[in-house]
């Protein structure tokens, strides 16, 4: 089965921005265009449609997938239609945005069979006969660089190109680039670490020595512990002995102190008693003194009303046997009397305080009395004036009545005066009118007036005027009289108030006088009581002074009596203590010896402890050291393990590295053994000249400038003239070289059987001559290759299309590619 390309539709892919649909269903398709016109992009689009990537992206890694998207497009769209010899049509549609997952669909005869990437790849691989992207680029899509390398390349480049065509170039590259240095450097670093650790260990003591010393220390420690235990026991024994002796010593000291104290007491008693003639006289003297004191106290107690205590004292009989018992009773009685004395004193103080208060009150009352008395005397004049006014003007009622009468009279007089004045004005006016008009009739009532009436009128006017003058003179007099009376009335009222106040004060003065008398009486009474208490107090105080003196004498004597009694007791006790001391058997030198032994034991124990501590410290230090050594040894061991593993890894990687070369060499041999017969077969078909009849590939191993061994291929041709093998590339013309290169390509296509009967040539051979053109067209008829798609800028290739149609009856098509700027590449039919 041979599959051909039928149609390509593309946009957004590399140089293509506009949607372009190209019919490729021809035997020969020529894509002609200048540099940058998009020829290679078109062939790459076919590759992308088949594999979803390109050789530049996957193998060369010169660009990324997203770089395949045209700069002005949002996504790639490529539709590729294939057709096989049975007429089945396969359609692959790929879409890819600059970012995001690619989409792919596979149609067979218009029916969608897969749209998942993995499934589409599997089906495509099956359809294409298992040809991979790498193989596609070796056997189907032939780039100019390969042909250039084969025809014109330096030996190394040529060899690389052949290796690539054979599919074994990656082994050589893997051999050369195998990154062993990564591991070597790590090994070097670990080695340095190991050396450092070894140096560290050598600086420390050797482990065996340390362990030996540790054993010695343990032995010494055991011995020390045994000795220490022994000394501890000894110390306990001596300590017990010392404690016993210390106890005896303390007891001895205590007894000595007691004896000293008792001896001192005995001495003192003897000294006290020495002042008295005989100790036997003491009781009778005490009795006499006690009896006298008892009588005195009894009389005073009776005198000062301490009945119960007095009876007790009275009942007590005093003799030599109970003399010591009566003394406390006497002391108690005395204390009672002292208490009574104190009560008197307190009473006296209380009375004095009362007297002082009464005196203060008395003085205050006297002061108030005197002040009131002087005020009363002063106000007597007011009374006199009051009585004088009453006598002269009468009572307040009389004066008030008179004032009211006078006021009425004055009012009346004023009214009369006003009336008369008005009348006078009327009369005078009437008279004036009559005289002026010389008439005799009244101007008001028009009555005829006679002369007598006028005269009467004049007299009346004169009379009124006379009365008026008298009235005018009486008014001021009456007013003056009224004012005087009012003043007297006011004064009288004021005096009345003062007189009432005076009466009140007199009453108060009498009350005060009574109070003062009362206070004075109380004061006299209190003074009498105070005098009485003072007399009693003086008597009692005097008695108590004397009684206390007697009591002290009595107590001293009773004390002596007691001491005299206890002297015998003390002497007996002293004797007992001395005998106890003698029984103790106290020996100070024995204590000293024991202390000395104990100190010796302690000293030895301290020395042993110090030695023990030193050894422990040394042991700890050694243990720390040995721990450190162990740690370093452990680390060293770890590093050694790591290094061993790394060395194993390095060794493995080296073996792998050289295995790549060996594999490459073996594969090369196998490939050549298959390749050369096919090569000669193709060569004999397409090479038209007789000068060379066979080709061969010689392999030489050479060292490169980088120091690597490389296999160098030399293509050899068998010269017919002398039967010698000569290097093709140095002996043959360019045209012959191009034929040899084509021979290689055609042979390669035969080497790997597959279903894709297409050969894509990108700028294949610069100088194509007749033989080459013929060889290419022969290829289409004699090999599996049924379609030739050539992208070139060389117009000479147009001849292939023309000749192919005319001479071989092949369907040909020529397309012209042109780059138009932002719209990208456009394709036109020629």
């Amino acid at each position, binding site marked *: 089965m041979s599959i051909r390309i039928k149609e390509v539709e593309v946009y957004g892919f590399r140089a293509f921005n506009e949607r372009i649909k190209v019919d490729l269903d021809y035997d020969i398709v020529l894509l002609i265009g200048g540099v940058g016109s998009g020829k290679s992009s078109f062939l790459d689009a076919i590759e992308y449609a088949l594999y979803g990537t390109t050789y530049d992206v996957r193998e060369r890694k010169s660009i990324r997938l997203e770089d395949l998207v045209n700069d002005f497009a949002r996504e790639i769209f490529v539709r590729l239609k294939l057709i096989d010899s049975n007429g089945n049509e396969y359609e692959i549609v790929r879409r890819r945005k600059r970012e995001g997952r690619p989409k792919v669909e596979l149609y067979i005869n218009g029916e969608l069979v897969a749209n998942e990437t993995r499934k589409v790849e599997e089906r495509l691989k099956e359809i294409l006969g298992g040809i991979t992207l790498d193989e596609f680029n070796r056997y189907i899509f032939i780039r100019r660089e390969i042909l250039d390398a084969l025809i014109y390349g330096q030996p190394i480049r040529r060899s690389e190109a052949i290796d690539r065509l054979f599919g074994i170039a990656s082994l050589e590259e893997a051999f050369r*680039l195998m990154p062993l240095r990564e*591991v070597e450097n*790590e090994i070097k670093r670990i080695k340095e670490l190991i050396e450092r650790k070894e140096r560290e260990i050598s600086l420390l003591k050797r482990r065996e020595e340390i362990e030996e010393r540790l054993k010695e220390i343990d032995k010494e420690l055991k011995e020390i512990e045994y000795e220490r235990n022994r000394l501890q026991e000894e110390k306990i024994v001596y300590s017990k002995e010392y404690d016993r002796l210390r106890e005896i010593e303390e007891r001895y000291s205590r007894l000595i102190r007691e004896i000293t104290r008792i001896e001192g007491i005995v001495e003192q008693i003897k000294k006290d008693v020495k002042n008295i003639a005989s100790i036997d006289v003491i009781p009778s003297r005490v009795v006499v003194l006690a009896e006298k004191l008892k009588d005195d106290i009894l009389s005073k107690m009776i005198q000062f009303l301490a009945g119960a205590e007095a009876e007790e004292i009275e009942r007590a009989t005093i003799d030599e046997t109970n003399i010591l018992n009566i003394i406390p009773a006497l002391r108690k009685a005395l204390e009672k009397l002292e208490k009574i004395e104190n009560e008197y004193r307190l009473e006296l103080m209380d009375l004095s305080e009362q007297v002082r208060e009464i005196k203060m009150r008395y003085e205050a009352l006297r002061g108030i009395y005197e002040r009131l008395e002087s005020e009363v005397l002063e106000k007597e004049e007011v009374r006199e004036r009051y009585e004088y006014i009453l006598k002269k003007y009468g009572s307040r009622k009389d004066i008030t009545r008179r004032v009211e009468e006078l006021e009425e009279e004055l009012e009346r007089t004023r009214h009369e005066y006003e009336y008369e004045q008005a009348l006078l004005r009327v009369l005078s006016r009437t008279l004036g009118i009559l005289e002026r008009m010389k008439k005799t009739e009244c101007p008001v009532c028009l009555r005829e007036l006679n002369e007598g009436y006028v005269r009467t009128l004049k007299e009346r006017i004169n009379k009124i005027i006379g009365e008026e003058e008298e009235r005018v003179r009486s008014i001021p007099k009456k007013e003056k009289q009224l004012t005087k009376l009012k003043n007297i009335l006011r004064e009288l009222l004021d005096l009345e108030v003062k007189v009432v106040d005076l009466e009140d004060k007199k009453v108060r003065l009498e009350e005060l006088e009574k109070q003062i008398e009362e206070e004075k009486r109380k004061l006299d009474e209190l003074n009498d009581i105070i005098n009485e208490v003072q007399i009693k107090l003086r008597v009692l105080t005097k008695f108590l002074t004397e009684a206390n003196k007697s009591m002290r004498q009595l107590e001293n004597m009773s004390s002596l009596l007691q001491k005299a009694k206890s002297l015998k007791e003390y002497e007996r006790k002293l004797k007992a203590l001395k005998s106890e001391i003698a029984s103790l058997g106290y020996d100070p030198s024995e204590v000293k010896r024991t202390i000395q032994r104990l100190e010796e034991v302690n000293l030895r124990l301290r020395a042993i402890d110090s030695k023990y501590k030193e050894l422990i410290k040394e042991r700890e230090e050694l243990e720390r050291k040995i721990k450190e050594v162990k740690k370093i040894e452990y680390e060293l061991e770890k590093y050694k393990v790591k290094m061993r593993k790394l060395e194993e890894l390095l060794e493995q*990687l080296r073996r792998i590295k050289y295995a*790549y070369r060996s594999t490459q060499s073996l*594969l090369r041999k*196998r490939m050549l053994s298959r390749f050369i017969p096919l090569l000669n077969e193709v060569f004999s078909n397409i090479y038209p000249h007789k000068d060379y009849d066979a080709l061969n590939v010689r392999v030489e191993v050479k060292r490169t400038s980088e120091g690597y061994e490389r296999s160098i291929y030399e293509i050899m041709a068998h010269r017919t003239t002398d039967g010698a093998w000569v290097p093709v590339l140095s002996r043959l013309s360019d045209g012959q070289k191009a034929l040899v290169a084509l021979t290689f390509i055609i042979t390669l296509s035969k080497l*790997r059987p597959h279903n894709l009967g297409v050969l894509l040539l990108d700028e294949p051979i610069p100088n194509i001559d007749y033989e080459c053109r013929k060889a290419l067209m022969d290829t289409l008829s004699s090999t599996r290759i049924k379609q030739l798609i050539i992208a070139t800028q060389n117009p000479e290739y147009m001849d292939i299309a023309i000749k192919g149609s005319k001479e071989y009856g092949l369907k040909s098509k020529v397309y012209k590619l042109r780059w138009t700027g932002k719209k990208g590449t456009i394709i036109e039919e020629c």
Partner: protein
Amino acid sequence: MARNSIQKKRIKEEKNELDMEKELENVLKEVLKDKNTYEQALLILNLFRKEGIVAVRRHIREIVRRILEEGM
């Protein structure tokens, strides 16, 4: 039907003969003998082909790191 299967068989045989990948693996296996080393070699070669030398370096560094960590 029979013709198709014969054709398929022939293609398969041819493919087997010329399947470079298979052949490469076989030769590598022969050369290295040790299975582990062979698998490692194949892994490195595939890494080199697919992702380049950087991936191989990364892979070897990873092995080294593992060895160092195991040792610790």
